[in-house]
């Protein structure tokens, strides 16, 4: 499934993210609020679900070649975070859902189901 489709189905607010970056295939998902855990566990092309709004999220997302970052609970990213995400070209998305619900919805869409391309 493409990131663009997820944005539409789950009504995500696109804060940064060019058209071509939304056209990528999402390889899976990762939900965590510890940066070190994301560095250790997330895989290339994953969509990251977090409540962290700090600019470090962008650096970690780029470092791990993630396809995008979704902030939960309608959390507003810090100004520096948006600027960094724009420079790095990584999609920064906002969901009004809490983590549990959002991850459940993503899983229903087939994101993160092993061996089953969405």
């Amino acid at each position: 499934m493409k990131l663009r489709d997820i944005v539409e189905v789950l009504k995500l607010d696109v804060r940064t993210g060019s058209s071509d970056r939304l056209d990528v295939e999402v390889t899976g998902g990762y939900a965590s609020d510890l940066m070190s855990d994301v560095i250790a566990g997330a895989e290339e092309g994953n969509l990251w679900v977090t409540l962290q709004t700090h600019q470090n999220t962008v650096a970690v997302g780029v470092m791990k070649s993630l396809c995008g970052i979704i902030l939960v609970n309608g959390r507003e990213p810090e100004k520096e975070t948006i600027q960094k995400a724009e420079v790095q070209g990584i999609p920064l998305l906002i969901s009004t859902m809490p983590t549990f619900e959002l991850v459940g919805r993503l899983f229903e869409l087939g994101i993160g189901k092993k061996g089953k391309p969405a």
Partner: protein
Amino acid sequence: MGGSEHGTPLAITKAKQPGFVSIDLHIHTCLSPCATLDMTPRKIVAEASRKGIEIIAVTDHNTTENALAVIKAAREFDLHVIPGIEVTTSEEVHIIGLFEEMSQAREMQAIVYKNLQEGMNDEDLFGMQVVANEHDEVEKMNKRLLIGATLLPVHEVVDAIHGLDGLAIAAHIDRERFSIIGQLGFIPNDLKLDAVEISRRLPLDQARSRFREYERFAFISASDAHDLEEIGKGATCLQMAGTHIKDLKQAFEELVVSSS
């Protein structure tokens, strides 16, 4: 950013009282990826000295490799430098360790390096990690992922610091990110901290009332300086008999008694 800055004028005037010293226990150098490149040993000591700070601690993220250079650079100044470290625990809590001797700081660094998460620093993403000497010359670049976390839980970090006769301080407890309260919700009852640090953004008296349940700890403020201009902002004034770690420990204990 905006907002008012607190601490500096008060700290410096108070320091003029006999027996009080102005002390900034949380300063990064150019070795911390997030610090500016002009946070070099000589520039740091010159700036601290110019601002009337009498004791500083060098507390880079997960490393002590620039501490000795700052100690050496300070020899020309009336400034005492404590070798220290700001450890990122497995919960991503920042704990400051302060040591009497460079050898103890190095032992702490060895423990941290052994448990630091694997990976190489990406200079474009996180910043450069410059190991400098006391003449402000570049010795080398540290390649470790200093921005990362260790595998050590907060209790183990505090125990390791105490095992090396150091002092353990929970950094910037008023902040959401990387603070013990932000990451763990509250300070565990059995955690043997020597002090809690309040960021310079919050005046100490406000902090004491906001965190009244932690009156068992000494409250100090520090700059957490990442650039030269920030050095000394929020410096604490303490009554100290000397500049040793034991004197600092005693000053912390007296702070708890006097404020309770």
